[in-house]
């Protein structure tokens, strides 16, 4: 093993980073855009090749970046022979596609977008083949589904493009979901999510009871991605994509991801009967079926699509056989298929681009019109047919050789015959591709007069065809890469000997039969195609659409049934279910012994209890009369505060009572604009039902809390009590917990409160500018108003109270660290003092004297609290570590300064700002409603009369 530093990570990330560039570079022109799109893959390829010597000497390059090692989550990558082969294909073909697409895309297509999608997809594919952690692999797997969706649907204006993209996403995405399950099972069996660990544990996995579920789930993922029967149908529909996309996704990358996965998992999952019968059979069937369909397709790309499905079946079949020789043949065919299929897709694109049609029935005779394309496409197609001296011949021989001695369910003829049939059909559609497109008479009714394109467009397929021929003529050049990749797949040391001539083997006769048979099919094409057209065939798209529609209809029925807009019903179901679950849990038993004595009930507590119970009952009975209910709610809040005082919680009592005041003010303000009474709407049945649910919930919660209180429980609070002064420098443990031990929580909470304030402000803005604003302007509030809205006594007394209340607030804030108090309470107290001004002297008068915006106050509060926390970083301590010390200034007594106080100041400011912003927003309604607004502090100012008398006199 070699440590790759971060180079592997860089390879995987380069396309993602590069994806940002083309969208910008398109402004500099199409050439610049394409050039810059090619830079990231070129760089990544260069880095990859740096590692080539290690890989070819049998080494493995690894990079590991731990994230949550306890959970097995780490960004780890590794590069072995198989990964190297795939990464080379992804990057190499990627470069060729970038070049080809530069000339293929027309001026109307947004090219920057295209390259961005392409690079995203490339990054995701690289991630799959380089990931060591299977969870990471799953993420990249899903990313390929998503980015291929963007690529396939690139021509958004075409309905076929959109539908094809959706279908591909649905099928491959669903398979991906199944695969997540399979991978998690695999990780569970082995106890590690690292592929390198999993690959060592083949025996353990195959003997596990969970082998079958894992196998099926993982194969679902692989089969959907690699378009194996019965999931093959999405691939031909994905042909609505631009041809460069098809050439990239369906030759080298997307569909090979499933093959890659099967190859990757080969040492672990293969070698069992289940593997052989599922994988080899599906592969073989797919190979024959798709080849058969391909013959009769008239759309060039569709023909190639089904041929791709067929060749993927070919690969799946070889991997399914489970022998090392077959796996080696599969690895070789991955390379071979890439070369001829990418070339063919690009040739089909060229023909489409030049002749403006891909319909074979409208083509023919292009041999003389497009000689270059003719040579490229024909050589590639001959390779696809498996004609000697091309590379396709080599792998077809290897495949037939493997098939010749495979016994399927005791039958030794079935597999060889099916494989030969597959090869025959494959030869047939390849011959038809050449014969019906390039041969025959030159026609005069092409949609566009075709001729060869420029060099830029045919350079990429030409290079691939050179590879086809070089490997075909000199097979040994491919040996090193095939050896190293096949060794990585099988885990054994593989040394192949690739040759054109193996002697008079059964495979040679099968191959001969296939070629001759293919020629015969071509000769009999017209009668055969008439027969094919007459055959009834299931149309996959119709079935798929029907399936999707019925699932959507089912989902809609369930949603509409459950989600009918009746909020009260949801709440009733929710509460009822919770009570039921609680009951079930209680039935389960397991309660500890009662070990805490009851406290005595003093008479005052009994009085308070009576008030609280009576208050609650009155709220329930009086809730239709809204003002009265509000007043009674205040009493309940008061009793709760009293309970806090009695039960040793002074901080809570202070907070509760100030929050109570603010809440009642808020509700009163809101009620001013709402109906004052609730009409009777629910019948007796409903009320009884709700009553029963309510009593059940109340009884459950009451019993639960009683059970809690009668038992001593282990608590972590001893730590807080012991360290509050030592570590936090405060005697008030509650306050120290808030600003120090659990300062992070408090920080989050003040942010939530600040957001609540801003939400209310934003809502008010939206409301006032919408139809509600109009309604408000037309409302008549004149009846509700008292004659003297700002009474003299109140104005004067609140103004006197303001400095006193402010001082109380400051006092409570300052002593908070050692005595009951602190930022929360102080903020609320000052808010109440300010609110009193609003109530007494009116909105406009008070607002005119408001210097600091409340939004800013919230912001300052959060920033101060955050900066205090960050200050700890300066000393290399974690966020929100606090410190304290004592200061001595003459003539003041020595006093304590703690950094937590600065944090508390942030809390104070946020609470104050949020509360004020909320009430301020509500008060703004009044102004908008067109009420007369006073700019004077009082409606009747007695000093006016004095002044007037003086002036008169």
């Amino acid at each position, binding site marked *: 093993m070699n440590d790759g530093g971060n180079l592997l990570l860089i390879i995987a990330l380069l396309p993602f980073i590069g994806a940002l560039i083309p969208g910008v570079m398109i402004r500099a022109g199409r050439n610049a855009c394409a050039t810059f799109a090619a830079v990231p893959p070129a760089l990544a390829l260069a880095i990859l090749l740096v590692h080539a010597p290690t890989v070819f000497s049998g080494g493995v390059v690894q990079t590991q970046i731990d994230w949550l090692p306890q959970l097995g989550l780490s960004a780890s990558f590794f590069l072995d022979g198989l990964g190297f082969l795939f990464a080379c294909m992804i990057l190499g073909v990627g470069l060729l596609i970038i070049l080809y697409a530069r000339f293929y895309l027309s001026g109307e297509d947004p090219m920057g977008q295209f390259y961005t999608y392409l690079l995203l997809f490339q990054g995701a594919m690289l991630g799959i083949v380089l990931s060591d952690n299977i969870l990471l692999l799953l993420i990249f797997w899903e990313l390929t589904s998503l980015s291929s969706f963007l690529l396939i649907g690139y021509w958004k204006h075409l309905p076929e493009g959109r539908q094809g993209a959706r279908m591909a996403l649905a099928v491959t995405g669903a398979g991906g979901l199944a695969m997540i399950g399979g991978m998690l099972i695999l990780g569970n069996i082995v106890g590690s999510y690292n592929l390198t660990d999993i690959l060592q544990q083949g025996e353990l996995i195959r003997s596990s009871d969970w082998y079958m579920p894992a196998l099926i789930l993982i194969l679902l993922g692989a089969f959907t991605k690699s378009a194996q029967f019965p999931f093959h149908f999405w691939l031909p529909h994905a042909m609505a994509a631009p041809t460069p996309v098809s050439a990239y996704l369906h030759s080298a990358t997307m569909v090979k991801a499933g093959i890659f996965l099967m190859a990757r998992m080969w040492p672990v999952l293969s070698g069992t009967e289940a593997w052989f019968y599922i994988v080899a059979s599906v592969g073989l069937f797919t190979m024959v079926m798709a080849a058969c369909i391909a013959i009769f397709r008239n759309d060039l790309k569709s023909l190639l699509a089904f041929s791709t499905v067929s060749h993927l079946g070919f690969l799946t079949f070889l991997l399914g056989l489970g022998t090392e020789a077959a796996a080696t043949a599969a690895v070789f065919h991955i390379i071979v298929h890439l070369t001829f299929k990418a070339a063919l897709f690009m040739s089909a694109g060229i023909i489409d681009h030049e002749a403006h049609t891909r319909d074979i029935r409208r083509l023919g005779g292009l041999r003389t019109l497009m000689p270059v394309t003719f040579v490229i496409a024909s050589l590639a197609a001959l390779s696809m047919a498996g004609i000697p001296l091309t590379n396709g011949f080599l792998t077809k021989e290897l495949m037939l050789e493997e098939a010749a001695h495979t016994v399927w369910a005791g039958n030794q003829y079935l597999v060889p015959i099916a494989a030969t049939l597959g090869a025959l059909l494959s030869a047939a559609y390849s011959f038809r591709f050449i014969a019906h497109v390039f041969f025959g008479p030159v026609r005069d009714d092409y949609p566009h007069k075709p001729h060869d394109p420029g060099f830029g467009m045919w350079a990429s397929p030409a290079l691939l065809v050179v590879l086809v021929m070089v490997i075909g003529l000199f097979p040994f050049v491919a040996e090193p890469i095939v050896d190293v990749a096949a060794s990585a797949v099988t885990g054994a040391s593989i040394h192949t000997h690739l040759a054109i001539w193996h002697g008079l083997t059964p495979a040679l006769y099968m191959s001969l039969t296939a070629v001759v048979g293919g020629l015969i099919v071509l000769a009999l094409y017209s009668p055969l195609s008439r027969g094919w057209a007459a055959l009834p065939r299931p149309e996959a798209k119709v079935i798929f659409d029907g399936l999707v529609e019925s699932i959507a209809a089912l989902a809609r029925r369930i*949603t*509409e049934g459950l989600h009918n*807009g009746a909020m*009260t019903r949801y*709440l*009733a179901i929710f*509460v009822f279910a919770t009570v039921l679950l609680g009951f079930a849990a209680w039935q389960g038993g397991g309660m500890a012994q009662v070990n*805490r004595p*009851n*406290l005595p*009930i003093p008479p005052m507590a009994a009085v308070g*209890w009576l008030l*609280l*119970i009576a208050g*609650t*009952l009155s709220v*329930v009975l009086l809730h239709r009369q*809204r003002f009265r209910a509000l007043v009674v709610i205040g009493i*309940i*809040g008061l009793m*709760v505060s009293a309970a806090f005082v009695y*039960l*040793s*919680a*002074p901080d809570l009592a202070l*907070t509760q009572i100030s929050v109570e005041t603010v*809440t009642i003010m808020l509700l009163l303000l*809101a*009620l001013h604009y*709402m*109906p004052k009474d*609730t009409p009777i*709407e629910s019948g007796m049945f409903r009320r009884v039902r*709700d*009553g029963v649910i*309510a009593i059940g*919930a*109340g*009884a459950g*919660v009451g*019993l639960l*809390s009683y059970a809690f*209180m*009668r038992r001593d429980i282990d608590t972590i609070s001893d730590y807080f*009590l012991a360290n*509050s002064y030592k570590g936090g420098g405060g*005697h008030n*443990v509650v306050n120290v917990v808030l600003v120090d031990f*659990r300062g992070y929580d408090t920080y989050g909470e003040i942010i939530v*409160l600040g957001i*609540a304030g801003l*939400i*209310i402000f934003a*809502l*008010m803005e939206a409301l006032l500018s919408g139809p509600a604003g109009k*309604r*408000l302007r037309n409302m008549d509030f004149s009846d509700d108003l008292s004659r003297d809205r700002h009474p003299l006594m109140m104005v004067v007394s609140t103004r006197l109270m303001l400095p006193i209340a402010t001082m109380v607030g400051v006092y409570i804030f300052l002593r908070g660290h050692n005595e009951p108090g602190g930022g929360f309470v102080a903020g609320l107290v000052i808010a109440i003092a300010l609110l009193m001004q609003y109530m007494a002297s009116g909105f406009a008068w008070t607002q005119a004297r408001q210097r600091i915006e409340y939004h800013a106050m919230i912001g300052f509060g959060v920033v101060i609290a955050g900066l205090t926390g960050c200050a700890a970083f300066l000393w290399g301590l974690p966020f929100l570590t606090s410190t304290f010390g004592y200061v001595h200034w003459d003539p003041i007594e020595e006093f304590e300064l703690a950094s937590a106080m600065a944090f508390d100041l942030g809390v104070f400011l946020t609470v104050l700002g*949020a509360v004020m912003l*909320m009430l301020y927003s*509500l008060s703004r309604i009044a102004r908008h409603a067109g009420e007369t607004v006073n700019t004077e502090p009082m409606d009747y100012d007695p000093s006016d009369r004095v002044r007037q008398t003086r002036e008169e006199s």
Partner: protein
Amino acid sequence: MEIVIASSIATLTAGGVYLILRLRAFAVILGLALLSYAVNLFIFSSGGLTVDEPPILHGDGIAGYTDPLPQALVLTAIVISFGMTAVLVMVSLGAYLERGNDKLDIHEDEDALSGEPDAQ
């Protein structure tokens, strides 16, 4: 004393649940206020009830204090529940002003799923 607190929590919860099952937003706001009291008391009481032992340190040792942790949790809960109530009040006020009533349930004449505003 435990029975006093437990029965208070039970009554507040029952009252709160009954009110949140009413059809009007205002009743639901009242119900949620009652429920917040109940929940705050519940969390507070989970530390066990003690009298005259506030968690204000006055000497050495850690004996003789009530559990400070539930108090700290409830303190922020009180403030946050105020924020929540305020948002709810504003939303229901907005709904009332937009629609002319403060009913909670969407009825059949108004399309629940389309999310389109009323045509009227």
